[in-house]
Structures are given as structure tokens and as C-alpha cells.
């Protein structure tokens, strides 16, 4: 028994856990004070709730609560980390190293810095989606002030070797930031064990509310960061503005739930994901996994279905919410730069579909999705001239070359 539509797009956002909402509700009604109003009970009540949430978020990643800077989300956290480290540096021009498959919330701030004279190196990735550590080491120059590499990719779920990257950066005295939005709350992340200096987190990716996130800033890194939003000196002067109390309380609760439940859910989610992948492989030809299978978060599956377009597949999958690397939502229609970075053709990139499971996903849902996808893929392939044109679909599962005519 499944309830339709099925949500399998957890990389985009997750359902707010009802327990999180319960924790938030008092702060959306009677406890409405501004935590900066320390002179009265309304304010102190709010401040205490923020303090408690800060501890929960810190505990989830093995940080101290004074190292948590609340923001409006991981996009802001990334901007604060990247622009803030560059702004605080004396080196001019300075240099930042990142990866071609990062989220736009890392790539766009880097582009912005570039237009202001900063140098940016974007490391390539292999067909598995992983960077080469030697290449990273070679990319670092005496002017490098920051290395920014995400924990888990938002499209293909591939996990970079963060501890090793941190070691390379530390050996060269360079600050290391990681966009951990897709990882924290889903897989264990410990900032001390990984030795990262800055880490971006987002509540809504872990069954918390939208519009709240955090930047972890290691104590020693705080003096090397310039704020991007000023006005009152909240959050140790690193992020001003009235705190989003209900959001932060919800974030704290989501963190507490993740701390308690992530480990237990990990293998269950991974086995559901494996079931999904096995279902596609058994019942369809021409399916291709994008990125490493092994170095991947358990909740991600990114598959290209040969000879069809992701947007068409998504549209036909009306009662299953998944998303496509083809970024059809955007006006440009450019197929996923992440899948293309793996060396895939535009057509394979267009054919990619991202399945995002979470701790609420059930086996029945997975089975429904397999059935539905198989039916829709078959129908669209019947419609596709490419299926006819390429004699043996089964042998060459993915159309690697552009079809420039027959």
C-alpha cells in the first residue's frame, strides 16, 4: 500500500518531520520574543531556545556550540564561507580551489569572486565523480586561501574523500570549507575527525524547516572570516539579523532526531536504494549509473535511461516526484553539468534522473517506483526514434556519442 504521489526527491528538500513541527509550534505562538531582547522574559525564553538548538546542531557534527553560526540556509553559508574567507585575506589576488561538480551555491560565489579579480581553480572529476588528490595538491599555490569541496554531491550523491582533502589543505596551511548540505543529518559527519575548518549545513535537507541553516566555523577560523551580512553583531559578529527562532528550534530538533536515528536508518535506506537499482537493471536495458556506486550516500541513485529525455520521463511519472539533471525547470535547458563532468555526453546527461530516498521511504514505494519507471521508460522508448536507430540497445546501454544524423 502506498500513498500517492510518492516523494523521492530528498536532495531538493525533505518533508518536515511532525516532531520538528511540534517543537517549533510554541515558538510560532506564545514564545514569540526576540532573543536579542535580554531585558524581558519573552526575549530570554527565545534566547534559551536558540542556545539549546545551537547545542543540538553542534552535537550532530561534533562541534562546540560557539562554532555554529546560524544562517538562512546552506546557500548563504557557502557564500559566507567563500566570500568571507577571501574578504578577510590580505593576499591580492588570492586563489580558491574548488571542483567542477560543486553546487551552484559554491560555483556562483566563486564566479562572483573571479569577476572581482580572485583566481579560481575548478578541479575536474573522473568518471566516478571523484577528484584526484594529487591534482588538488598541485592546484594549491602560495596564494591559495581556501579549498572548498563538498561532502556529498547533490545530483549524483558521490562522496569526496574529505579527510584526505582536509589533510592536503592543512599541510599547505590553507583553510578548508566543505558544503555538507547533502550529508549532514543523513550520514555521520564529524568536523573534528574530518578536520574541516568550515562546513555548510541546511535544515530542510534533514527533515527540518526551510530558511535556516548554519555555517560551522572552527574556533581558530573565526578571526579569518569576514561577515557578509552586518548589522548588530549577532552570531559573534559573523551574521547579523534577528534570529529565526522557530526555524532554529526546528533545526535543533531535526538535528537531535538525526543524531538519534541516522545510524539506524543508514543501512535500511541503502538497501532500499539497492533494491531500486536492482529493479531497473533487471527489468530494463540501457540503464547507466552516473558516478561511483561505492563512494555514494545511501539515499542517492542517479541513472540515465538511454534514448529518452529526463524531463519527459519526469513529466510522465506524474505520481512519483523525482528530479532530472536536465534542469528543465530553468530557462536554459542545459543538461546537468555534473553528469557531463563525468565525461558523459549531453544526451546521457539529459537522460539522467535522480532518485532521492530518505528515512520515510518504504519498500512498497520503491517497488511502485520501479514498476512505474519501467512502464514509462518503455513507453517513451517506443516513442523514441533513437531506439530504432541504434540496433543493439542492450549492448551499448548509453548513447555516448552525439547523434549528428544517421
Amino acid at each position, binding site marked *: 500500500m502506498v500513498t500517492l504521489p510518492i516523494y523521492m526527491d530528498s536532495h531538493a528538500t525533505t518533508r518536515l518531520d511532525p516532531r520538528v513541527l511540534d517543537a517549533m509550534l510554541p515558538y510560532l505562538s506564545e514564545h514569540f520574543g526576540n532573543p536579542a531582547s535580554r531585558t524581558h522574559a519573552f526575549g530570554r525564553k527565545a534566547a534559551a531556545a536558540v542556545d539549546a538548538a545551537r547545542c543540538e546542531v553542534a552535537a550532530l557534527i561534533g562541534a562546540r556550540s560557539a562554532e555554529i553560526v546560524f544562517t538562512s540556509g546552506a546557500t548563504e553559508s557557502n557564500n559566507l564561507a567563500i566570500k568571507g574567507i577571501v574578504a578577510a585575506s590580505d593576499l591580492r589576488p588570492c586563489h580558491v580551489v574548488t571542483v567542477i561538480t560543486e553546487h551552484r551555491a559554491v560555483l556562483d560565489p566563486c564566479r562572483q569572486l573571479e569577476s572581482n579579480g580572485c583566481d579560481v581553480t575548478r578541479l575536474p572529476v573522473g568518471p566516478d565523480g571523484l577528484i584526484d588528490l594529487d591534482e588538488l595538491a598541485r592546484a594549491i599555490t602560495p596564494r591559495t586561501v581556501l579549498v572548498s569541496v563538498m561532502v556529498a554531491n547533490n545530483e549524483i550523491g558521490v562522496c569526496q574523500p574529505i579527510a584526505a582533502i582536509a589533510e592536503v589543505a592543512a599541510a599547505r596551511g590553507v583553510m578548508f570549507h566543505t558544503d555538507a548540505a547533502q550529508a549532514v543529518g543523513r550520514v555521520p559527519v564529524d568536523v573534528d575527525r574530518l578536520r574541516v575548518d568550515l562546513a555548510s549545513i541546511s535544515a530542510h535537507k534533514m527533515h527540518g524547516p526551510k530558511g535556516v541553516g548554519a555555517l560551522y566555523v572552527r574556533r581558530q577560523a573565526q578571526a579569518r572570516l569576514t561577515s557578509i551580512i552586518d548589522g548588530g553583531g549577532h552570531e559573534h559578529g559573523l551574521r547579523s539579523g534577528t534570529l529565526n527562532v522557530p526555524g532554529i528550534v526546528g533545526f535543533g530538533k531535526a538535528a537531535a532526531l538525526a543524531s538519534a536515528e541516522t545510524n539506524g536508518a543508514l543501512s535500511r535506506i541503502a538497501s532500499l536504494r539497492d533494491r531500486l537499482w536492482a529493479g531497473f537493471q533487471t527489468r530494463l536495458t540501457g540503464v547507466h549509473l552516473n558516478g561511483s556506486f561505492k563512494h555514494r550516500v545511501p539515499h542517492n541513485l542517479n541513472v540515465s535511461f538511454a*534514448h*529518452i*529525455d529526463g*524531463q*519527459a520521463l519526469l*513529466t*510522465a511519472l506524474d505520481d512519483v516526484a523525482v528530479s532530472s539533471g*536536465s534542469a*528543465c*525547470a530553468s*530557462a536554459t*535547458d542545459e543538461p546537468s553539468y555534473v553528469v557531463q563532468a563525468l565525461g558523459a555526453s*549531453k*544526451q546521457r546527461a*539529459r537522460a539522467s534522473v535522480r532518485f532521492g530516498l530518505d528515512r520515510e521511504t518504504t519498500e512498497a514505494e520503491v517497488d511502485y517506483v520501479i514498476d512505474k519507471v519501467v512502464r514509462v521508460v518503455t513507453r517513451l522508448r*517506443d*516513442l*523514441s*526514434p*533513437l531506439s*530504432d536507430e541504434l540496433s543493439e540497445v542492450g549492448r551499448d546501454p548509453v548513447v555516448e556519442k*552525439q*547523434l549528428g*544524423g*544517421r
Partner: protein
Amino acid sequence: MVQSSQVNDYFRHPRHVGSIPADAADVGTGRVESPGHGDVARLQVRVEEATGVIQEARFKAYGCSFAIASASFVADQVMGRTLVSALTITADEIGEKLSLPATKQYCAQLAYDAIRAAIADYETKRDAKAHLTTEDER
């Protein structure tokens, strides 16, 4: 990207999907690709030579739902029309009938190009045949 009910209908219930033998003398096949986007439409028409009326149309399409709907729409439209009449269908008209958003207008163009390519293919064959016949008669 919001799609109109017309696109939705043609995408979910496409009319005239399929292939007909491309080497038949009365069949014209157009296969076109959208530059930049990579969407592909193949349109086939079977034409009654005497009347110039399209008796049968078949399409296949690769691409987004708008491309598929556009191809299905034109297959539907050209059925029963004369070649001359089919050639009066414009890309704008397709876009309008399907309420395509501006960024998807290229799908209308693709379908439009497929009509012209299919008819051109048929006419090339017919003319070649006519030429042969003429030579036979000589």
C-alpha cells in the same frame, strides 16, 4: 515549466506513434534535430499520388514533453490534408495551438521542420519516379 493541457494531452496520449516502411515509394520520411537542444523528431507521411492527400502519418520523437507533443500534434494535423495545405502550417501556429512557453518554441520549430522534411523526401522520391517513368516512355 508549466505545460498546457494541450501539451499534456498530446504527450500522454500521443496520436500516430510509429513507423512505416521508409523505402515505400509513397512514403516521405523527415528526420530533424533541433540544433543546440538535440531533440529529434521523425515524421512519416504516406501520400496518395493522384490527389496529393496525406493518407497516413506516423511520428517518433526524442526530447522533452513539449517536443513529443509537438511532433504528435503535427502528425495529427497533416492527416487527410493535401501536401500544399500541410505546408501552410507554420511554427507559430503550432506554438499557439499548443500554448507553448517562449522557451519551448523551438519544439514547434522542430515539428514544423519535420513536416517540410517529410514532404520534401516524398517529393524527391516522386520526382525521381516521374523522371524514370518519363525515360521509360521515351
